[in-house]
């Protein structure tokens, strides 16, 4: 009984996470476009991925 309730509640929570996460991603996309970061207007996903990785390195370096 409790196990079923827990499973159901966690499942609902996870589904809510998906929605929230999607909102976060869209928000990030908008911000990147606003900042003029390359490849966020384009469909070149490989370059976009590389650019994100580069930004991550840039932020990490700035935090050190």
């Amino acid at each position: 009984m409790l196990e079923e309730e827990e499973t159901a509640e966690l499942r609902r929570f996870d589904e809510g996470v998906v929605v929230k996460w999607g909102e976060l991603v869209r928000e990030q996309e908008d911000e990147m476009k606003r900042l003029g970061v390359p490849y966020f207007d384009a469909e070149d996903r490989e370059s976009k991925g590389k650019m994100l990785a580069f930004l991550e390195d840039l932020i990490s370096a700035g935090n050190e």
Partner: protein
Amino acid sequence: MNTGADPSKALASLLAILAQSTQSSPTSHLQPNSIYPPPRPHHSVSPNAQHIEPVFIEGDVFETTQWIGVPTTPWSEPRKWQFPKLDLDVLARRQLPSVSKVTTPIVFEKRKRSVSPPRQEGSRIVSPVVAAKTTFSCYSLAVKYVVQRSEDGEFMEAVTRVQRRQNETETDLWDERQRIIRSFETKRKMNQVLQSLGSQLKNDKVVLLLSVFVLMKGVGGGGDG
């Protein structure tokens, strides 16, 4: 990043790397100045929760994150921040009310640390140096451009703000999920205690008892767990 300009910093950095590499600790791969707390052991998760099937489908945005809902990987505490890698098609599908399994709206509880509010259109800080050029003939030119932009404090501040918001969201979601698991663990334990006492109480009464227990603890000011 610019340790090459300062030999002493470069040496210190090298020594730190060497020291790290000689550690045999299983968590030695973690950055010592990591912004996340050390990962909690997986056995802290309820044994029942471990068998819960992930709800995420293949190709979800979560697939590329390190910590959450990957179909083959159970939830784990966020360890190293990275941007979510967006799959627009998947996202577009997510926008549709395809999550028909959800019958009740999810309301996230308020956290101890206030969650940063959603960005508002009116509150945008428009940098005067925002460039319109976002297409480049090759990746190296784009990188060069971003390096130039990174010298602008506002640009880096904005990117760092994006990072911070994601960190907070991930941490909040993780904490919230752990809270759910803990609450059910507590209920189970109470059930066991009551059963061992020969009680005939059912689960709903357990919840009532728990509430009374929590209330009494609150009135008594007990914080000793």
